């Protein structure tokens, strides 16, 4: 079911009505039914896959819980040999967790990467098909529900979350529909209890959710989808294009990606909020970041948090990680040696994040680039500190902030050249092209050939509105909350204006093939 379709709006209304009509204790059933409908309408194969993952999480969670309980009892008991048995219990927990994670993540890796890997290996053998290419349909939100269920299992193992006795409740946590399309990836602590506890209708919260949903649609339909054909045109045939156009195309691509992804997130969070459920934030105005590290703490927050929590910390705090740190300290000195495991783990994680985007060389370069930038920033931190102090780049001065933001923009922008191109070589050549032929003599013709003046004006106004709201939010003003509590003479005109803007200037309907969210097929 397309989130941009009329059917989806009818579906949401039906879920809302059923949810608030049911008694508090049974309200989770409305979410379950809604999720079941949503998942099954997105394809039976995907629904089956997700159900298997949920079953794994449910059974694995129960088994882990039982083992944990047993381990506790053994440790409490203090009998002879109970210590050994407790250790065996821990080993079994580890094995069980590894087994379930291999099924969970293995299935995802197989579906996402098998075709690309097989094609690549077959290519090495000069066309002989050594490995069959399995073009399996990617279930909706594959990596989101896989990561979420894997995270839940790890949390159960760590004793930070509970297993669920009811398989339907476990299924609901894994397949909660608003976040299926493109996340966010929630932990049990953030979402589990919220889903299962019935929520009373709170008018202010409901209105705030509705606002957020509208705002998400505005970002997606008015900005992102308007820029979609423009960026495609700008970055498609770049042969004789002047450098400023190539660079402009990449900037627009980045803005489009932000509007698309964060818009989808606002829709998901808005719907949830209308149901009384608060999903974690996934974007916090990333373009105001003053460093690449901060950028990744503001962009796709829950993915970064997942990798940090379930991969980076275990890696850096593992025996191997600590041992590496010790050895490195001996070779490079204490200061540098201590951060080497962190730098290497960061590099690895960003390579994986890159590969998560797509199974191709560009994704690898994209991830490795950010990984190297981040690793360098960790390793060279003392040097940066000295340089910042030498160039007076410390403190909260506006000029310093602007400089740091611009620097982050440049570093992030460079990575985008590899985000949409078909090969690293093409990405590099486009990057090179953006520096040459800055000829503005045909500016007007070139711009209007891509999009009419009126469309540019609409896109410009919409982006200005987005920028303004982001600036206000960045200054700590809770626009959504304020508007939800505002008098109807203020709130209604704003909402009506937003609604009209979406329905008139949004890109949808006949003659326009509504594009899916860019991060849906991950």
């Amino acid at each position: 079911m397309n989130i941009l379709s009329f059917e989806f709006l009818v579906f949401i209304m039906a879920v809302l009505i059923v949810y608030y009509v049911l008694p508090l204790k049974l309200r989770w059933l409305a979410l379950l039914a809604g999720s079941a409908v949503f998942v099954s309408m997105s394809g039976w194969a995907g629904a089956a896959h997700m159900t298997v993952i949920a079953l794994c999480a449910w059974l694995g969670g129960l088994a882990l819980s039982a083992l944990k309980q047993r381990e506790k009892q053994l440790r409490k008991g203090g009998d002879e040999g109970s210590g050994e048995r407790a250790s065996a219990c821990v080993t079994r927990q580890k094995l069980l967790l590894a087994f379930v994670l291999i099924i969970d993540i293995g299935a995802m890796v197989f579906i996402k990467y098998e075709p690309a890997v097989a094609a690549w290996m077959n290519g090495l053998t000069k066309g002989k098909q050594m490995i069959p290419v399995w073009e399996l349909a990617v279930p909706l939100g594959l990596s989101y529900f896989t990561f979420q269920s894997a995270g839940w299992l790890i949390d159960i193992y760590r004793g930070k979350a509970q297993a669920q006795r009811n398989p339907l409740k476990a299924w609901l946590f894994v397949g909660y529909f608003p976040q299926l399309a493109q996340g966010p990836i929630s932990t049990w602590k953030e979402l589990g209890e919220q889903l299962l506890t019935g929520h009373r209708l709170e008018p202010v919260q409901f209105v705030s959710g509705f606002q957020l949903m509208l705002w998400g649609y505005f970002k997606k339909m008015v900005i992102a989808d308007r820029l979609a054909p423009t960026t495609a045109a700008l970055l498609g045939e770049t042969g004789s294009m002047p450098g400023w156009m190539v660079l402009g195309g990449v900037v627009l691509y980045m803005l489009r990606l932000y509007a698309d992804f964060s818009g989808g997130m606002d829709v998901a969070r808005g719907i949830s909020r209308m149901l009384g459920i608060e999903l974690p934030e996934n974007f916090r105005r990333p373009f105001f970041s003053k460093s690449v590290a901060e950028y990744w703490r503001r962009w796709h927050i829950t993915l970064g948090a997942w990798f940090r929590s379930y991969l980076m910390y275990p890696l850096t705090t593992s025996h191997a990680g600590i041992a590496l740190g010790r050895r490195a300290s001996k070779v490079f000195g204490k200061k540098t040696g201590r951060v080497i495991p962190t730098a290497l783990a960061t590099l690895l994680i960003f390579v994986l994040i890159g590969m998560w985007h797509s199974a191709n060389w560009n994704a690898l370069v994209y991830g490795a680039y950010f990984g190297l930038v981040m690793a360098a920033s960790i390793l060279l931190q003392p040097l940066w500190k000295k340089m910042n102090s030498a160039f007076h780049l410390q403190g909260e001065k506006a000029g310093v902030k602007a400089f740091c933001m611009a620097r982050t923009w440049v570093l992030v922008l460079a990575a985008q050249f590899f985000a949409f191109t078909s090969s690293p070589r093409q990405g590099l050549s486009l990057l090179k092209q953006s520096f040459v032929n800055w000829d503005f003599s045909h500016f007007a013709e070139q711009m209007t050939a891509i999009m009419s003046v009126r469309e540019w004006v609409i896109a410009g106004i919409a982006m200005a509105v987005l920028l303004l709201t982001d600036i206000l939010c960045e200054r700590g003003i809770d626009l959504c909350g304020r508007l939800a509590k505002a008098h109807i003479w203020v709130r209604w005109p704003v909402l009506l204006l937003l609604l009209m803007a979406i329905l008139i200037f949004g890109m949808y309907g006949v003659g326009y093939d509504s594009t899916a969210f860019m991060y849906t097929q991950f």
Partner: protein
Amino acid sequence: MEEKTESRRRVLVFFWLRLAGFAVIAALMLSYATYVLTPKSDFGICSMINMYRQPEDSVDVLAVGTSLTYAGINTNVLWSEFGIASYNLCSAEQPFWVSYYTIKEVLKTQHPRVILLDAKPSIYERDYTKRGRTILSTYGIRGLENRMGAIMACVEKDAAMGYILGLPEVHSNYERVKLNDFVFPPDNGGRGVDWKGYIEMDEIEHHQRPSLVLNSVRRNMNDREEEYARKIFEMCRDEEIELMLIGIPNPDYAVDHMYYNALWSIADEYGIGGINYNTLDERFGLRFSSDFADWQHLNVKGSMTFSRKLGEDLKERYDLPDRRGDAAYVSYENCAKDWYDKYPDFKSSGMKGM
């Protein structure tokens, strides 16, 4: 505790009332936006909206059909020369399914004595209507049931929702909106409320009378066109309205002949007749060299010549009252006056510019 419950109940009641209020205002605004963004073409949209502005039960002859009808039947001639109160409710390439729902909608406020049904759609082979035509043919219909019926008949099921909601199909027209698109009702291309649906075509294109072999061979109509033609026949029979099939002269007729034969033979089953002006022995003064605007449509002079003949036939076949001088029909007088003022040269069937 009770007080708390009472206060929450009040909050919720207010909330639902406000939500309903917001939904109503949003719906009104969206429906107005749909109107503004819908192209205000004379035919289809304007002629339908204008129909609602006609006094109740004031149309004696209703003509439905394609562009051949709105350009061919000159309502001003029928009025000024025969006193016939007629109205053209047509749209470009109007299929029988649109005609059917259009007639159904009109019958809510009018009870015409005669309905003229253009035979041209019998030649259409499409199962569905083109997008633009669907908008122009259906967006003027106010009655929800008939509007939805017409839309569902025009487009495939999957695409219907966008048309039923309206805005999704026209929202991207904002680039073309002009100031008078905001005015409701539309000004019918400057013709005003008295306009009766005739759309003049000024051009002259030289043609030859088609050489016809007048056989009775039939070529099957498209199944859906036939289905709706039958529905129209049955509806008129049930409503006790005289239905007359009408073949409007056009230079391209040779292609249509066998389809028209099929339509006539179906009409026969219902005891319905008509006149195919393409096959009349009598030439009634129509000149193919000067009376057509293009390869299908009569121009102003042609429409006058044809409408005179049509008026005579209508008078001869049906008991149609002469409404001239009746105060209730003053809008017809105004419409004819305005039109003849605009085209003074045509008062004596002369040709403008010749």
